[in-house]
């Protein structure tokens, strides 16, 4: 909203105010007289007659956006920065040396440790000459489209709370996820698909499950919808096996006759109208969503680009390709998890770096490179913001007396952004010579969140939601500046 919020009640939008006040959606729709531009945008429901506004209808951003949608590639478990994108030549040749270094992970606080020399060589890529490890030979070729942030920090080196922080900005659960905030701020462009989609690793969800895509204190339609990459994509989307389309249509038509009669007898109650229209919307979703996930429409060449022809990258490749199809169709926020469940089923390499990161990078390198290239050749990269990273990074030193495993590290880690108004071929911030902690220009998760919101045309300090006596913000009450060095 670029217009001044003069009509707002105490900084809240009318809508928030009404929710807070318990009027609910029905009363909100009723109050079309309020004159708020939110309400002025009355749409017509799928049936073409019933006035119905999907609460996720698109809303104008605060200012002209660079990106329309986000694909967040979540490397759950915490990928190691020094083995991937944060090149530390000083570590080479020093394997097993004990050094004084302050670390904090699941094994607690330590003041020294045994260096684990990265097991991969780094080489330079692109015209920017970015050093990338041999874990990512394909992604390496995309560095001119990527902005690396090497000085990320988070508040907790523990999966549960760090996941909540990366997803919702807080280490306490109960706060809306980034995807919920984005849909709250902008709505979504395709009413036949959810606005916030989450795709999980088939090995399992991340720790705390649905808390990571919960809408917290916001209404439930803002929470992430789990989408599967095979079979029925969304819960209850498919008709029961023994119900044909014709039967379902007959059921919905008869239902509608009853409901319209009921509504007519009750004047123009918008809550009743909304529920009638809602069945039509659901019906359309049923036919629309399967099309969105139908990969038979894609060429072999495209599938191969995403690594779907190789066993190890087939699943993540499919999910990345689905992510592209979803943003193409106007889904606002897609989150894809690499890694799930426990132990080495995700990037949590406590025991053996080579085994763990070899596996997860192997699964994702080609798909992610394919996603960037595919978006780019379709002209979609400019309007799609890709975010890559985990809930934290890993320590330069070993967790145990023997072996290569690394413990969690929230003092310094790497995340990267691409597309959506992001400058390619740049690296901002740095860690110390071992990659143990952020050194120059440290950034916090909230700065990353601010950057994502900013690229979408949302002012992180102005995107507020009144709850528990406060104007809540994703980036915290004190606000946060976006990272301008990575923007075009």
């Amino acid at each position, binding site marked *: 909203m*670029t217009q001044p919020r003069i009509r*707002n009640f105490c900084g809240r939008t009318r809508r928030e105010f009404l929710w807070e006040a318990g009027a609910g959606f029905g009363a909100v729709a009723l109050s079309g007289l309020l004159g708020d531009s939110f309400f002025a945008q009355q749409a017509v429901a799928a049936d073409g007659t019933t006035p119905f506004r999907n609460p996720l209808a698109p809303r104008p951003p605060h200012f002209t956006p660079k990106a329309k949608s986000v694909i967040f590639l979540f490397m759950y478990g915490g990928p190691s920065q020094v083995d991937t994108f944060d090149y530390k030549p000083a570590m080479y040749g020093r394997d097993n040396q004990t050094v004084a270094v302050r670390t904090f992970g699941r094994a607690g606080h330590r003041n020294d440790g045994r260096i684990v020399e990265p097991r991969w060589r780094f080489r330079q890529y692109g015209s920017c000459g970015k050093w990338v490890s041999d874990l990512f030979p394909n992604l390496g070729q995309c560095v001119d489209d990527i902005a690396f942030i090497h000085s990320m920090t988070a508040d907790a080196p523990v999966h549960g709370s760090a996941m909540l922080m990366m997803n919702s900005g807080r280490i306490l659960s109960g706060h809306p996820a980034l995807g919920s905030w984005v849909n709250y701020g902008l709505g979504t462009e395709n009413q036949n698909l959810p606005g916030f989609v989450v795709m999980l690793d088939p090995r399992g969800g991340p720790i*705390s*499950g649905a808390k990571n895509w919960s809408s917290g204190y916001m209404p439930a339609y803002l929470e992430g919808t789990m989408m599967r990459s095979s079979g029925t994509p969304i819960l209850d989307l498919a008709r029961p096996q023994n119900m*044909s389309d014709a039967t379902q249509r007959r059921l919905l038509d008869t239902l509608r006759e009853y409901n319209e009669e009921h509504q007519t007898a009750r004047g*123009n109650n918008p*809550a009743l109208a909304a529920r009638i229209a*809602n069945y039509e919307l659901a019906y359309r979703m049923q036919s629309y969503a399967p099309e969105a996930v139908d990969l038979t429409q894609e060429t072999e060449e495209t599938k191969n680009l995403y690594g779907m022809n190789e066993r190890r990258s087939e699943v993540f490749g499919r999910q990345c390709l689905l992510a592209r199809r979803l943003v193409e169709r106007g889904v606002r926020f897609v989150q894809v998890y690499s890694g799930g469940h426990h132990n080495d089923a995700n990037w949590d390499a406590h025991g053996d770096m080579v085994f763990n990161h070899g596996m997860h990078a192997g699964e994702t390198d080609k798909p992610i490179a394919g996603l960037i290239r595919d978006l780019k050749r379709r002209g979609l990269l400019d309007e799609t913001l890709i975010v890559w990273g985990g809930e934290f990074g890993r320590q330069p030193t070993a967790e145990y007396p023997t072996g290569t495993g690394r413990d969690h590290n929230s003092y310094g880690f790497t995340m990267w952004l691409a597309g959506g108004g992001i400058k390619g071929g740049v690296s901002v911030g740095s860690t110390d010579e071992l990659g143990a902690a952020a050194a120059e220009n440290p950034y916090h998760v909230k700065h990353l969140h601010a950057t994502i919101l900013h690229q979408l045309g949302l002012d992180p300090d102005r995107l507020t939601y009144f709850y528990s*006596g406060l104007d809540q913000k994703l980036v915290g009450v004190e*606000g946060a500046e976006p990272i301008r060095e990575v923007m075009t």
Partner: protein
Amino acid sequence: MTSPRQLIGLSILCASFWPWSARADQPMADAAGAKFFDKEVKPILQAHCFSCHGGEKKLKGGLNLTSRATLLEGGDHGEVIDLKKPRASLLLDAIHYKDKKMPPRGKLPQAQIEVLTKWVEMGVPYSDKAVVRHGPPKVDAKAKNFWAFRPVKRPDLPAVKKEAWVRNPIDAFVLAKLEAAGFEPAPPADKIALLRRVTYDLIGLPPTPDEVKAFLADNAPDAYEKVVDRLLASPHYGERWGRHWLDLVRYAETDSYERDGAKPFVWRYRDYVIRSLNEDKPYDQFIRDQLAGDELDKVTPDSIIATGYYRLGLWDDEPADPLLAMYDDLDDIVTTTGQTFLGLTVNCCRCHDHKIDPLPQKDYYRFLAFFHGIRRYGVRAFETVAAASLRPIALPEEAELQKKKIAEHKRRLDELAKKIEAIETEIEPKLEGGEKDDFKFPANRPGIVSKHAGGLVTFETFSKYRGLRLEREKLEKNAPTGMAQALCVTEVGPQPPETFVLARGNPQAKGDKVEPGFPSVLTDVGPVLPTPQSDAQSSGRRRVLAEWVASKDNALTWRVIANRLWQHHFGRGIVRSSSNFGYQGTPPTHPELLDWLASEFVSSGTRFKAMHRLMVLSNTYRMSAQPIAGPLAKDPENDLMWRFNPRRLSAEEVRDSILAASGNINLKKMFGPSIYPKIPAEVLAGQSQPGLGWGKSSPEEAARRSIYVHVKRSLPLPILSAFDAADTDATCPVRFTTTQPTQALGMINGEFMNDQAKVFAEDAAKNAGNNVQDQVRAILWRVTQREPTAKEIERGVRFMDRLRQDNIAAPEALRLYCLLALNLNEFMFLD
């Protein structure tokens, strides 16, 4: 005490709304200029400028735009306004993005640039309304006299014209406002609408067809009253109203975070709430139980269970910063207690003085000090939770008896062991070779002994031996059960740690030491703290807080609870923001009525049932929910209460009604450990270990009411979350009512719905016979609780006929009709 620098830039929040006094250094502006400033300029400054140039947090470039005087003073770059040559003003350069670029995060839209340009040309007029607040609200006489904080005075009943409409005092207050605004109250609701309304309202279930028929046939003047009394006496009343309370106290049965572990015995708290309501326990006792049940004169198992209140929140069992986590836990308690019992967002002054309400930061820590002795829920492993948060709840005499039983059990086992051993000792030397070695292991002994029965061992000894062993086995299987335990609060001992004001809420930044105290705007009287014995289990501080909260003089307590009762009966509170009675809360639509209700509640012994009765028997409650064009246009929000507010069923009502309609609901079984209705595999797949922490209930168990469904924070039951059940991570005073396509998908395609439709169809076929018309009638009765019209029956018959023509078998057609019936708006909405 607090410098403005400590304040966070939320100052703009209320500036457009709250009439803070003007600053003296502002010249009087002419009316047109002032109006232009207030209407056009100020919002732009607030949205784009004040966060850096607002004079509160950080003053960038030394420029302060909050008054004409400071604006004209300029900043580090010198003057920014040239009154003689306005067009040359530096401020205009900046907003046009010439040399300097302001605001830095993006050029203003052209329209706003034009407004500011015009303003500069006008000579930058300000108005006499201040633009930002300077410092937090003060705790002064004016604050103490705020409508919510001042003592409750029972108002006289207002005079009304249409006296005949007034059935009880509630009606007088409502009618007086209606008449003053030129409104008429809506006509009474029809009998069926009223019966559905009151039945759902009081017990959360639909009336049965028999109840409907009986009510329709009863023409006595007290027919409705009898219904109300029946419902208030129903055990299901506690199951319905208990849920409202559970929302407020963030009731959940797991801890959230990585493990999201189950809270042991937490369901006893849920049962305590249901029982308390059913017993009509006075609210003041309900307060004392929960806040200080362990510190009362008479501690009972119930009062211990009630303190489970403190253990319902989140628990991070491996916090990155344990000290901060402890304060986060205390904050959860301060937040929940402040909002639930007092309607105060005390939590807003954890880091700084409250921005909106007269609550200095010090008050937060004084309030927190009441709870500071509470032990953390646990440290990490389950044993630590058991140590800090579990206590046996057997009464002393029961415990004594239990001890005796255990001692007797042990004595008998010892006796048997001796006898068995004696026989074995006798046999052992007679054994040879490998058997001798094998005999060293007790598990082998019975086999060896029986092998030698009639040989080394006489039959007589063997049968004695066998008898002794069987007896021991039986005894071991029937050990006296462990004593009942409750999840409850415990403290570190008689002396809690000292409490300090924490600058910006940072546990490392200790400020002044504080003692326990009530919010200063509410009372001048400080708490009188007990001196506990040196061996006391707790400090006794919470008792002091509980007594103050529950005291008859605590105006907020009674206003807040009276408002909550109103909210749940009438669809919204007299104060809509029912957990925020502060300056930013919504003012009451009927302040006198609220005070009358609060005073009535206290004088009738703080019992809920009398208040329910009063409210639902009023004519206000009995009004029709039908919209009427004129009033609807004038008062669409129904602030005047000119009609009853229609509503959708709550999440629990939706699920319970589906089970009730299908004839499947298990209403008999109340209380006890929670149930696990089936959750689809697709949903379980979202867990890091699919299915972990979700049990399997038998069909009978799974058909119990929704209040008994296990509340797992990271895995809500889909049908409940789809229909806006409370988020359990924090106190929830008002639920959303959303309409979203996933609801419709679940209601048509979901496994639960399709299964229930099947049960429904089988039941309907059994009861209504084979005649399709009778079946349709019976089904519609179940979902709408009324006689269907001929047209409605005809429509259902036609629907099934057509399905039959499509070669769908009769039972399946009937099942589909049941599915349709469960989707009717009339089923989901109440008039």
